[in-house]
């Protein structure tokens, strides 16, 4: 028996992005929905008739109904694809919960919500053993039942679960533990996991597909779906396929002058057209002179125009006026004296008011400049 399907997870449809401008937040939310037709295209290209979604299809079980309808309509549109949806910790199958609502909405025939832990035949000789979550934290391994699940001899068993593989280290966001050797114990040809947003192989037969559309500046590798081919007793053949619309990048730069940003410039230039779909967070460490701060502002503005979004974390960046800055305040005057005092505090790592002093210093230079401009 050979079967090919797409393994994906953590769609988190209708996730909101309050930290971004409403325009970008809207695009990011829309991108999660748009992942559905993209995945359908990938499935067609891969010759896969089934898409197994390993939990957290929806971001919350409190979503407004229209959000559910939209997702269902996108799946209905891909009528040649069979969508198998597993409830996860974001959208558990609890009484009165989201899956009951979906059932009331009469979902399209090509969509199946696997809300019961019982074998589900997806093709002759292939069953999916789903481990739906019925609440956020069931306090037990929901995949445990797979060990004892009875299927006809010779049937290919595919596990579908949502949670953190116990002892794997990179625990997902849910508190649900999955035995690391479940595939072996339950005789699974493949265990499709969700919850961990980055693409991760636990062992040859156990994978996290990660989320198809990144939703944060990543610590892992999101933005893929897995094309899985099972053929009898042969090991699973698993192929990651990029599926993301947005690229989320983060970068930390140690900086002493604006020139230290040049390598990052080159890296960003290399994105070519991808720039427009890139979100970048740059964390700056080190210190800059006052003049370079405005240069930094200009740099940020330039890249804000080229990228979809840029944010610069300056918490760890200190601004140090240089001699030129100080000389503008007069050699011996009280302004120079005040600047020296503030600068001393700002550069004293142990001083509790050092951040305030740094800001006060910037203001002092700004006011002095304004006065000169006015005078």
């Amino acid at each position, binding site marked *: 028996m050979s079967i090919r399907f797409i393994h994906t997870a953590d769609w988190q449809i209708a996730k909101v992005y*309050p930290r971004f401008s409403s325009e970008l937040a809207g695009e990011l939310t829309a991108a999660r929905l748009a992942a559905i037709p993209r995945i359908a295209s990938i499935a067609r290209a891969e010759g896969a008739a089934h898409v197994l979604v390993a939990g957290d299809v929806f971001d919350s079980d409190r979503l407004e109904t229209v959000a559910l309808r939209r997702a269902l309509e996108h799946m209905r549109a891909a009528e040649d694809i069979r969508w198998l949806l597993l409830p996860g910790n974001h959208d558990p199958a609890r009484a009165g919960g989201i899956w009951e609502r979906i059932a009331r909405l009469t979902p399209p025939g090509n969509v199946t919500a696997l809300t019961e832990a019982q074998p589900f035949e997806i093709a002759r000789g292939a069953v999916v053993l789903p481990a739906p979550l019925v609440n956020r934290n069931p306090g037990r391994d929901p995949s445990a039942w797979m060990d004892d699940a009875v299927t006809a001899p010779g049937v290919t068993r595919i596990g579908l679960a949502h949670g953190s593989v116990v002892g794997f280290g990179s625990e997902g966001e849910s508190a649900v533990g999955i035995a690391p050797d479940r595939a072996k114990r339950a005789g699974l040809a493949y265990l499709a996991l969700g919850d961990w947003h980055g693409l991760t192989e636990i062992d040859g037969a156990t994978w996290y597909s990660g989320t198809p559309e990144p939703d944060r500046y990543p610590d892992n590798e999101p933005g893929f779906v897995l094309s899985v081919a099972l053929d009898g007793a042969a090991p699973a053949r698993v192929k990651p396929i990029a599926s993301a619309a947005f690229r989320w990048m983060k970068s930390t730069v140690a900086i002493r002058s604006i020139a230290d940003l040049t390598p990052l410039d080159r890296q960003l230039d290399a994105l070519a057209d991808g720039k427009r779909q890139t979100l970048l967070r740059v964390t700056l460490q080190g210190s800059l002179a006052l003049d370079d701060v405005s240069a930094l502002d200009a740099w940020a503005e330039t890249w804000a125009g080229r990228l979809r979004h840029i944010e610069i974390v300056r918490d760890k960046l200190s601004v140090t006026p240089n001699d030129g800055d100080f000389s503008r305040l007069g050699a*011996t*005057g009280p302004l120079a004296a005040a600047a020296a005092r503030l600068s001393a505090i700002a550069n004293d790592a142990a001083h509790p008011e050092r951040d305030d002093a740094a800001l006060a210093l910037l203001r002092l230079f700004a006011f002095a400049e304004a006065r000169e401009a006015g005078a």
Partner: protein
Amino acid sequence: MKLLALRLAAFRRFGDGVAIEDFAPGVNVLAAANETGKSTVFQALEAAFHTRFAVTGSVLDGMRPHGGGEPLVEVDFEIAGARWRIRKQFGRGKDAVLTDLDRQAVVARALDAEERLASLLQLAGDGPGRFGLAWVRQQRSLRAPDPDLDPDTGKAKSRGEARALSDIIGAELEAAANGEALSAVMELATARLADLVTLGRDAARKHGPYDLALKEQTRQREALAQTRALVAACEARLERMARVSAAIAELTDPVRVAAELADIERLDRATAANAEARQQRDRMRAEAEAAERSAEQAANALSERDRLAESVEDLTAQVARIESLRSDIAARVADLNADVATPARVQRCVDLYDAVRQANAELMSRSADVAFALTPEGAARVTIEGRPVERDSRLSVADQVDIAIAGIGSIRITTADADRATAIKARRDAAAEDLATEMALLGATTLDDVKARGLVRTQSVEHLDRARGRLEGMAPSGVAAIAARRQAIVDKLAATPSRDALAERAAELQRAALDARARRAGAESGVEDDAVHAKRAADLAALRTSSAARQKTLQTFELELGELRGQQASIDEEGRAALLPLVEGALADADADVARLEREIRALRMLLRTLDDAGRDLKERYLEPVTAAIAPYLAEVFPDAGLSISRAFGLDAIVRGGVREPYGTLSDGTREQLAVLVRLGFARLLATRGQPVPLILDDPLVYADDARLAAMCRALEQAGLLHQVVVMTCRVTSFAGLAGRRLQIKPWRAGGM
């Protein structure tokens, strides 16, 4: 500048002209009693230097004497070795004349003279400038020596005094420029801070960015609290739905429900079966009772028949007894009817007997008693009516007796009432005869016999009466009635089945009753115990109740679940609970805004604090010349004291022994002395910077004690070495110790201009 001479006329107190001609370059003392015009002298000096000659209105009026006239002032003075005279005529004929005394030439008049004078005195603007620093009016010495305070009103006014000091000091200090830059930056920082907070009060400025951010933060906090409450409600509802669903599942558990139904059915069946047995038993009971009743009736019928038969016998016997009684009565009646011893006859016998006895008694009572005592021989011879007489006997004679003596004859004895006695005798005899007849008839020989016969008869009658009574009792309604009754019974008997028939039927029914009783007993044994039945009925009822209760609970739960579903659906439709991350994000933004602004506020405050510190250093340097100028005088009067001077050269406080004493809290004397010392300092500063002005004190140090006054005098003498000092005082002796020229006010005749 040094004063050389002062002349005035028609000026306030002085209607006539007066002059002070001999000012010394050092200390001058104008000591004079009150009201001798010292203050007028002071004012005249001010008028000469600082009042424009063309002045009108209240200033002019203020200068005019009571008696009227046009004020005239003339001052000779020396500047940088050159001697000058300024003469000002105020009011009518107003004019100003500046004369170069060295050349004895008028150099300028009117406005030109004023301008030239100002230029000579290095005065810019209208105010008294540096002269104001050193010229202290009467009663003003108590006030803190703040330059640029209008001496008339005590209010700040640009008099060019501070400027004069600044000019002197600033010329030396490049820091002055920095001071300006500092002020400007501080102003900008303060303005920025004032945008955010209300200065002074530690509060956000209303409608300012910080205020708005705080309000936004509050709004977002509330929104978050609301949304969280909504989410919590959703969660609680979903939780409840899960619990209710589980409860419903348990209530509708097929195994449990089936078991309960089976229980109910089993109990139901058993109860129904038993109910049938009970019915059968009840039927048997009724049948047995009916059979018994029939048997009893049959037995009754038999005994009734027997009773009737018995009645017939009784009645027959009764009739027989009655007949016998009746014949007995008839016999007795016949006997009685035959009996002669009727009560009347017996009574007649008794009555007759009584009549005889009564007659005898009467006769006796009427009788003569005849006693016989006879010899035995004689007895034989005596007879009465032929019957011998007993020898010793007695005889009663009722009527007459004839005693015959044999042998002798007879003796008649007749009683007195013999006739009556005869009659009685006759009646007695008749009665006796009747009695005898009757008694004979009755066969009685004695009256007792008679009575016995009467008694017998009475008894017979009584017997008869009793018999009759018995008869009456036996048949009160007569024998016929009894007979009729008997006949009726006989007839009834005749109509009744035969005794045998009845007996047979009774026996038959008795057997039937026995059978029925046996059947009943059988039925009874088929019925279970009441307690068992009752318990099972109770069990069944309890089971049914609990089943119904469960049904009801189920309905309630299903209803609740429906309601919860509805509520949840509506919340889901609105999707408000899903907004939680957005609201959290909005609050995070608001928090960040507030934090940013608070950081800005802290930074601005820190900047201002730092600038202020830096400024204080500058100020110290800036004021240093002033304090240095005052220092020698201060040391004279207040050793070991320091002064705190404001940036505007005002005196803020004195610092003694490390304690800062604000000027206002000091005693009048100390304040006055300090004020004079500061003026001395100002004058010294001006003198050492090449712009000396005379120090003029109008009636100073009125509060000083002797020691202080002496010290002050030493200070004044010291000052006199540097510049001219003019002390005007009414306390002649107090300043006696002050070395210096004693000025004289002398009459003066004003000449033409």
